[in-house]
Structures are given as C-alpha cells and as structure tokens.
C-alpha cells in the first residue's frame, strides 16, 4: 500500500507535478486550498457578490458548485442549468444537476434553447451536425447571460479548468489568431457583459474529476452525441499525451501565456466600442450579436 505523505492512510491521488501523494481527505483539502488561492489571487469573489454558477450537471461544474458552496458560505450562489435540447443525453445530466442543488440546499434555475430561440439544439443542427459545438457554445453563453441577469447576479462562474485554458491558448496560436491571444486576458467587455470567473482555472481536469470521485459527487452519465464534432478534440488529446509524458505541460502553457500578456502590458490602439444588438439588445461591436447572427443564419 502506498501511503499518504501527510498521514498513515492509503494514498488515492498522486500529483505528478509536485510528486506529492494524498489520501482522500488530504487530497480534498489540498484541492480546495488551491481553488481558494486562485479565487484570492485573481480577486474573483467579493463580499455581497451574487454569483450565477453555470451547472451542466457534468463533472467540472458539479465540482465547481460543491467547492464554491463549501469555500464561500456567505456568497449567494445561483446555479443555472442550460438545457440545449440534446436527446438521450441532457435529461440525465439535468437530473444530476437538480439532485446536486437539492443536496446543497440551492434552487436550480433552468433555461432552455427553446426559451431563447424557439428550437432545440437537435432541431437547429438537423442539416449541419458538424457545427454542434460552436452553435451550442454561442447559444449557451447567451442563455447563461440572460438567466444570470434575470436572477440579478453580478458575476458568472463557470467550471473551466486548467486543461480548457491550455487548450484555448494553444488553439488561438494554431489558428494564428493573435487578437484572440491578446484579448483573452485584456478585454474591457466586463463593463457591458457580466464578468466571468473561472475558479478552477488553475486546477487540472484530472484533479477536478478526482475530487468528484473521492467525494462521491459523480454518477455515470451518458456522453454528448456531438462530442465527436468537438473543435478541440485533436488539441485536447495531443495535449493529454504531452501532459502524460511531461507532467506540468498544461501549467506551463497557461502561466507562460500569463507572463507574456503581463510583459505586453495593456492593449494599445483603438478600443472597439461596444454597441447593442439590433435584435436582442445584448452588447456587441457589430449590428447583430453572435447569437442572433447564428439564429438568423440557421433560419
């Protein structure tokens, strides 16, 4: 039996970067301390905040809501679950989300794609399933913003973890999208959009899911039928292999990016002025916002 580095119990988690082995309780404490440090470092939560928490019912958001409820007993948390309308997948995850909220004594707010555009994701994708994740992402952002504002939240928390961040950084470079690379940390759109926080952004996906398993938060759920069209599938599996061979790769990508942006300083030149979407009134720098453009295009 391999022992925990901090007590005599059996180790259940090995952090391949720091080479520390943890038993269940010590791992949970270490994980929570890490999230608390991230929240503090980036001043993510202030007293009196009303935080809308995107809760898909999947692994990351389940861990996010559980840890936020534990770390911030005074903050007002408003879980929001978006029902995209994906047959044979979403019903089970929504049930998991509702159950989690019941356990935590929170009320889950539901909003569906049908509420915001009259169609389910399945209906929208009838002719072009390969666009699933970009359509889904754009409309989910819209739904989350809308529900959060309606609930009177002043911030939105999402379950993105370090792996998601590292993938995004890499994808911007792979597309040669320098503007995106620079904007990712330096946008003043916080003034018009609800600010977003990602309290798990310095936790690996592996540690996040391990936390869910150690604390028995996760149930077996079906996989989204559109996963095969996910834009980042290739980047993700490539990065996963690098992380296995060279632990710390994700961390290096994310912190390297942060250092680069700090060196560059604030964006120079003209700042695009935000206007309002002609259809829905959401902030945008174009005539129509991304969601309305999409809805128009998809008929």
């Amino acid at each position, binding site marked *: 039996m391999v022992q925990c580095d901090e007590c005599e119990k059996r*180790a*259940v988690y090995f952090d391949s970067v720091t080479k520390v082995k943890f038993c269940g309780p010590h791992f949970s404490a270490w994980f929570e301390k890490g999230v608390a440090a991230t929240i503090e470092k980036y001043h993510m939560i202030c007293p009196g905040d009303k935080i809308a928490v995107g809760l898909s019912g999947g692994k*990351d958001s389940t861990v996010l809501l559980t840890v936020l409820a534990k770390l911030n007993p005074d903050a007002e948390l408003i879980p929001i679950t978006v029902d995209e309308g994906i047959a044979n997948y979403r019903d089970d995850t929504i049930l998991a989300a509702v159950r989690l909220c019941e356990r935590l004594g929170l009320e889950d707010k539901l909003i569906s794609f049908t509420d915001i555009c009259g169609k389910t994701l399945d209906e929208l994708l009838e002719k072009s399933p390969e666009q699933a994740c970009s359509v889904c992402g754009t409309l989910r952002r819209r739904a989350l913003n809308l529900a959060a504002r309606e609930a009177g939240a002043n911030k939105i928390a999402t379950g993105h973890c370090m792996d*998601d961040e590292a993938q995004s950084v890499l994808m911007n470079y792979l597309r040669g999208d320098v503007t995106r690379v620079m904007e990712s940390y330096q946008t003043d759109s916080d003034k018009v959009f609800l600010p977003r926080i990602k309290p798990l952004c310095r936790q690996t*996906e*592996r540690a996040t899911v391990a936390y869910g398993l150690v604390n028995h938060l996760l149930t077996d759920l079906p*996989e989204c039928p559109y996963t095969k069209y*996910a834009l980042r599938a290739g980047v993700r*599996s490539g990065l996963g292999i690098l992380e*296995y061979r060279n632990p710390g790769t994700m961390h290096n990508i994310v912190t390297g990016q942060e250092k680069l942006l700090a060196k560059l300083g604030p964006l120079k030149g003209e700042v695009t002025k935000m206007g309002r979407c002609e259809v829905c009134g959401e902030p945008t720098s174009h005539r129509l916002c991304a969601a309305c453009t999409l809805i128009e295009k998809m008929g």
Partner: protein
Amino acid sequence: MVKVHLPDGTQTTTEAGTIEEILLRLNLNPYEILITRDNELLLADDFVNETDEIHATSIVHGG
C-alpha cells in the same frame, strides 16, 4: 482476468498488472483516465489482481 468497465459503458477483460500497465495495454492515456475499485481511487502504480473489477472514468468532456 481483471474486469474493466470502460468510460463508454462497455466492458473488457485484461491480465493483472499495475493501473498504468493496464491502461497502456488498453490504449488509453493514463493522464485522461481515473480508475476506481470498490469506489476508491487507485494510483497508477497500484496493482490490480486477476479477480478484481475496476471502473475507468474519463476526465475528458465535450465542448
């Protein structure tokens, strides 16, 4: 043989070995898979016996 419940809901069997050996044998990336036995997480170096039944959870999600 070790019985393995795979993330996609299917099952397979394999010879005894460490978690890391088993995952590599099944062509799975050990970084992306967490293994539990009787609801307890196992380490990559933990040994799994012929009569064991283990459960693989993928850390990967869509989007």
